[in-house]
């Protein structure tokens, strides 16, 4: 087992390197110039006076300062070298260290995703089991249709809808529109502060979860259906075990395996999903940071964020493999010689 994990970790290194090379190249070769953005050319209406002029010397100076004057491969090695020492560079835009900008925001995104993660499994798995055991019942049909509807709704649309209808004095006002706290947050007492933050996060977390939620419950249903057709389930039933025991003790464990596979991809996918959700709900997480960085061609931030997401993906896959062995002892890591 330990040997397997080490082997897998070693395998990550080339995977991550390849990912960084590709993202680095895509990032640099895309049109758009960070020195241009440095001039504040971000508004819809450009200013008519000299303000947006940047002379060649200044431009050259910034290209040099940012290391953009070097050949691409050199830039990559410099980035890699610094990264290995834990230095992701400074943001082109405001000179703040990238690590600091990300560390400041990551608890928000991660917190949101972890809550959403538990929510998804907590609700989706039981629904999946219910649908599978009551196949073709009215309940199953209703949940099936409902899940398909939820699955097909794009979350940016759902987010906007939620804001317009659930946060609006014109319709129903339950939640605050955006951000993490109300205007008078600093003047609230301890409990009220907690409540204020919680209310701000309800909608984003629900919207973030809905797509995956439907997806997982569907997967759970089909995997459960497959398992309960197996012989050993029939045997268990023949032994006279209660239906409850059959399903929850014998079938559940095996039907969880495919769901675990999805777990590996879910975390990075959700972090990706929070790019949009955070922008719509104005939540200052890493997703919002990344979206802005892409528009600004702020390479150090884009690279750090892409690295983070690929790292999460790779870790997710590793976790899945380890969990596999726990859930299903048939999967062996060490080839034992007979």
């Amino acid at each position, binding site marked *: 087992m330990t040997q397997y994990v080490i082997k897998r970790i070693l395998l990550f290194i080339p995977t991550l390197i390849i990912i960084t090379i590709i993202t680095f190249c895509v990032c640099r070769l895309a049109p758009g110039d960070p020195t241009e953005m440095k001039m504040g050319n971000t508004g819809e209406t450009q200013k*008519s*006076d000299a303000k947006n002029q940047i002379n060649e010397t*200044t431009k050259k100076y910034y290209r040099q300062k940012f290391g953009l004057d070097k050949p691409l491969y050199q830039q990559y090695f410099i980035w890699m070298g610094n990264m290995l020492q834990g230095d992701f560079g400074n943001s082109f835009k405001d000179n703040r260290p990238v690590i600091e900008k990300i560390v400041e925001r990551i608890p928000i995104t991660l917190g949101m995703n972890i809550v959403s993660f538990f929510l998804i499994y907590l609700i989706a798995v039981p629904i999946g089991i219910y649908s599978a055991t009551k196949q073709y019942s009215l309940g199953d049909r209703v949940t099936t249709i409902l899940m398909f509807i939820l699955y097909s709704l794009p979350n940016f649309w759902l987010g*906007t809808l939620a804001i317009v209808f659930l946060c*609006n004095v014109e319709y129903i006002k339950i939640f605050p529109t955006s951000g993490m706290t109300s205007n008078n947050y600093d003047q609230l007492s301890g409990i009220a502060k907690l409540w204020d933050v919680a209310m701000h996060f309800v909608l984003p977390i629900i919207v973030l979860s809905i797509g995956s939620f439907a997806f997982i419950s569907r997967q759970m249903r089909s995997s459960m259906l497959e398992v309960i057709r197996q012989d050993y389930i029939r045997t268990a039933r023949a032994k006279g075990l209660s239906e409850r025991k059959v399903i929850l003790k014998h079938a559940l464990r095996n039907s969880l395996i495919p769901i675990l596979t999805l777990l590996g991809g879910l975390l990075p996918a959700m972090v990706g999903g929070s790019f949009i959700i955070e922008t*719509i709900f*104005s939540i200052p997480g890493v997703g919002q940071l990344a979206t802005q960085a892409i528009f600004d061609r702020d390479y150090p931030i884009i690279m750090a964020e892409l690295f983070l997401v690929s790292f999460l993906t790779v870790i997710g896959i590793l976790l899945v493999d380890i969990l596999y062995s726990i859930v299903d002892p048939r999967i062996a890591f060490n080839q034992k010689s007979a």
Partner: protein
Amino acid sequence: MRKINFLIVLALLGAITLTSCGRKKTETVENKNTIKLITPLDPPDTKDAVNGDWVVKHEMADAEKLMPTVTNDATAAEIDDLIYDGLLIVNRETYQIEPLIAKELPVISDDHMSYTFTLKENVTFSDGTPLTGEDVIFTIKSIKIPFVDAQALRNYFDDVKSAELVDGNKYKVKINMSKPYFKTIYTLGETKITPKKILDPQNVTDKFTWEMIAEAAANPDPKKYPDMGKFADFMNSQDVARTAKYVVGTGPYKFESWKTGQSITLTRNENYWNKANVPNYPNKVVYKVIQDQNAAIVAAKNKEVDYMFAINPADFYQNVTNPEQFNLKKAIVLEPTYVFIAWNNAKPLFKDKKVRWALTYAINRQDIIDKILFSAAVPIESPVFYKSKYVNDKLPHIDYNLEKSKQLLDEAGWKDSDGDGIRDKIVDGKKMDFKFTFMNNNNPKRKKVMLIVIEGLKQIGIQADLQEYEWSVFLDKQKKHEYDAGYGAWQLSVTPEDPYQIWHSSQAEGEGSNYISYKNPEADKILEENRITFDETKRKELLDKWQQIIYDDQPVTFMWTETSRYFYSDRFRNTRWYAYPASGLVNEWWTPTAKQRYQ
């Protein structure tokens, strides 16, 4: 039977006449509406004014840095207006430049090469330190040092050679220029003064002579100037840009806190030196970031924000029809901007003046204004703000006229020779169709406008497509002149305009803003002269002549001056709407005690 036919014809005729009459009528009425729509500048309402309450203003993006020397984003510039003062200020009603920190307007040498400012002696920073000429010199120096991220501001200071105290008098500063330029007084006057005691307590900048700075600027290599580099690193650091310790000015408000990506809060500067003239009624001003337009509008309805700007016309006119219901008011302000359709003059299609005139004739501007902008815009014929005294108002309005358009295209040799419905011409021995692509930046409003223009051009045998680009790609293409045509908008100022940056031939190459590649030696000469003209009558003459040339050449089709749209809470009083800059000045707003919402 005959009778019936006759009646039908009569009815039809009547209907046509009526509709055409009616149409004419509505057009004029709508034009009048546009003017009426614009929120007038109310007289001051400060009787019984009380302090207190907050103003929560919506921002679309977070600021980057609040230190004005190194700031180049719009959000920060607006916030800095409340934290810092300049030597002079442009009066928001008369647009004349007036003294602020300076006692009076500067004494300008006859050759316009030096400006001597005498400062008021009672001006203090919010921490209580007095402002002196040393702070002015320090501010200019920190802008000129090439390693400081002041690149946006530094371009303005290219001509500043040096600054010094006059006879060691701490309240008298002389600024020397390397060449005369009529906008220098605005540049020097409006620059926000930063405190030397706080940003350079060790007086490091005293060691950098003006010659040294100029040398470093010519060849910016931080290794050669380690001290300057170190000072620049400090100025560029996040501490200086984001902490209340360093963001200190002489303005009516003080920087209090910054919640990254969420909000920036200012509190009233109780020690404000200029209280008698510039009020600061609200206790706090909160700039709240909401990126999503829909969310921001809902937030305004919910009273989560008190003041909102940059609202889509559709949201403004259709989504919120009765703002009173949400305790909101609307303001529509005519701001100095103009919108145009850019024709890349370097492209063979648009080289001929006749073609460009034909294109202008083929665009029904009033129709687009009515359809897309809810009539809230004014068609224009010149790039000078139409309310400015420098606008040439003798330029005849160009009406929508397809017949003239077709005739001009025929004259220019663009005829549909192969009968495919698209005009063509032999250019350089090759047959060329009149087909091109409009460039847009993913802005839905602009897209709607261009789709109507494209429809119009179809009727005169021109085929145009639309290609959308992300903003930075759009800018890149524009800068490299890699486009045929596109939607453009320039923001002007209320002070005398210098069109050089956009219209001079020299700016069509390299990094200039003459993106349309417009070149006219006669126009160039006028623009050059304008830059060194200090007499207002003479400038008016020059600019009138120049506008006539631009009008005749039609390098772009001037579309309209648009209005800006605002929502604000009805609990505020003394809400005055200026054209420029920053339409509502929140420091002037006050709330009657009974209506105050925040403590």
